[in-house]
């Protein structure tokens, strides 16, 4: 955000919003952010957002969980204190592995789920005591807000164009810290 001026453009219908996003981007205006009350399907694609890689993260975390479980079972049950339980001595990991499958599975899920959620919270910057940043309280109710970069554009003609896309309200925001 090189310049300080952005327009906050409110829509009150998701279909109108989707159409507007396509029109705005076709005119080469820059949408810097969108706030919506619920997931509008296809909005990320229409805005040109890249795919999220959280699923890949989760897969890697799952592999870490599986490794932790394997190392833990091998150390505890085979190396550190091998016991003969029910006539089945703990000689090698491979032979005793079937009994450890439940633990290996649970720890895989545990790591994959929790580390992915923590990654999500950190990447999206959400945590307890974090202050909400949606500019209008209606964006969690039934309004959709687009933040359009106004730098280098004539604000009057830009807002006229935005009203034509179906915007219900438009306001000009001066971001002094970026000026």
């Amino acid at each position, binding site marked *: 955000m090189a310049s300080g001026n952005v327009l906050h453009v409110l829509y009150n219908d998701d*279909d109108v919003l989707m159409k507007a996003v396509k029109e705005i981007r076709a005119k080469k205006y820059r949408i810097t952010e969108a706030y919506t009350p619920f997931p509008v*399907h296809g909005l*990320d694609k229409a805005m040109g*957002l890249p795919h999220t890689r959280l*699923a890949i993260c989760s897969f890697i975390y799952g592999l870490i969980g599986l490794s932790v479980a394997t190392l833990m079972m091998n150390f505890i049950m085979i190396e550190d204190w091998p016991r003969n339980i029910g006539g089945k001595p703990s000689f090698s990991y491979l032979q005793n592995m079937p009994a450890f499958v439940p633990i290996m599975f649970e720890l895989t*899920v545990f790591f994959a789920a929790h580390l992915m959620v923590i990654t999500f919270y950190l990447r*999206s910057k959400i*945590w307890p005591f974090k202050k909400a940043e949606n500019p209008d309280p209606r964006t969690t109710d039934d309004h959709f807000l687009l933040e359009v970069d106004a730098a280098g554009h004539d604000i009057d003609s830009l807002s006229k164009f935005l009203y034509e896309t179906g915007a219900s309200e438009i*306001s000009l925001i001066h971001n002094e810290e970026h000026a």
Partner: protein
Amino acid sequence: MSSHYEAPIREPLILGEKSYHDISVDVGAPILGKANKSWWIVFSIALVAFLWGLGCIVYTVSTGIGVWGLNKTIGWAWDITNFVWWVGIGHAGTLISAVLLLFRQKWRMAINRSAEAMTIFAVVQAGLFPIIHMGRPWLAYWVLPIPNQFGSLWVNFNSPLLWDVFAISTYLSVSLVFWWTGLLPDFAMIRDRTKSPFQQKIYGILSFGWSGRAKDWQRFEEVSLVLAGLATPLVLSVHTIVSFDFATSVVPGWHSTIFPPYFVAGAIFSGFAMVQTLLLVMRKVVSLENYITIVHIEFMNKVILLTGGIVTVAYLTEYFIGWYSGVPYENYTYLSFGAATGPYWWAFWALIICNLIVPLTLWVKKWRRNILWTFIVALVINIGMWFERFDIIVICLSKDRLASSWSMFSPTFVDIGVFVGTIGFFFVLFLLYARTFPVIAQAEVKSILKSSGARYKRIRESGKDLAGTATDKRTSTYAERPASLSVASNAGATHHQSTVNADVLVDTEAKKAEIDMMLARIGTYDPATQTPDDLTKISGVGPVLEQKLHQLGIYTYDQVSKMTKEEYDLLDEIIDAFPGRAERDDWAGQAQKLKN
């Protein structure tokens, strides 16, 4: 738009003339309004039961588990029955949120939040029993694989009991983050809607500062999907491992390869029965009948029918194999002088009637869609599934291979008290949840409103475009207009009283004129100089009715106190749920008193 298309043959999942804003209002109402009397009554009963159970737990722990009815032969009975029962109930929540998400079932949206809450609260109850059964609950950490002060001896990872520790704690914690992540946007909605600074602060913290950016939603959906994919095998593993507690033993009747799938099906069966029990009451108490509809109830009944069928087949298989094997121990557990005709015949037949026979009535569509009958069947299944675990645990233990050690189990008042206490604890948690949490995943319901809402289905069928239909006049005048830019406003052609936002309630201009005339008689509310009164203090007015009165521009005691029969009749006409008792309860008189 075509993206909202849904086959017309599908029944709507959201009834009534709902807009996006209506969903926020309806879901927020129980939190932003006051608790009614019935809530307090039920809460008090639950609290008393919980405290009684707490007393029994303290007595058990301080005296020893000898105060239970266990004996040398029957070392597991009431406690482990309760444990398995509660864990089983905890299955429907994750099933609804995870498995139905993977199958893209839209009907899950209205019920997943409460089902997940039920899961968490039920698993908490389940966890109590093994811990109390240890006798010295302060040593419960011994089940964790931590190097301890007795040398380096570790816990036994070959034991299903230890697998249980890992399975259930993973299940509880993953369910919790799944639930909470889904709650963030809904807490944010409450945070932005409430006018109380205290609630704003609390829900601000709870919502983790959720702002609803497009990127956040993209991640949110990905996380939900991956969590669902992880939770689906997880939910199956939990009850599979619980069944291993029995199946890997050598006790006749327990030593059975059919247990894992049969336990999982039974858990889903009992979990859905509990969801039905809770939701049928909740939809009434917090007026969410338009969201948790008869269609949802029927779908859940179909799941109950399917899983009940699996359970039935499992029972019959067990009886057949018991007989066919010719092994007297197996055979006796189920047939001949065993379960059906032995000293526990009543428990056996309670199970057969409750789990096999009564649910069969749900094959009839009319009964499946009957709310009262559904409620009764759900209660019966809850009872039947408790007896199932009692039968498996107690009957199988009561007559083992050594006739000299045959014994009977009868619970003491402490056994019963602890069980009642967990039911009380469960309802205390659930009732508190129903007052403070958004009980419907409103963001997700909004995302299916245009495809599955009754109103939008109608608009679509009349051939009109859905674009622009979500506009709600109530929110369009909500905030101060920015001064820097002129705003093109599409105000209505005729000007009505500005405090009236009755478009949802009335459709004709004539009615609107009548409302204007009524306000002329009782006075209009001026938001600039007056503050609204709490109309719910008038007996007969709840949060929902208050909101409707607000829509008609009635905000103050002064206005209500001027009402006469003429106004009551008009309200009767306009508001569907108007109790027709305003005259009898003498609202005007009450308001006159409240005014002073």
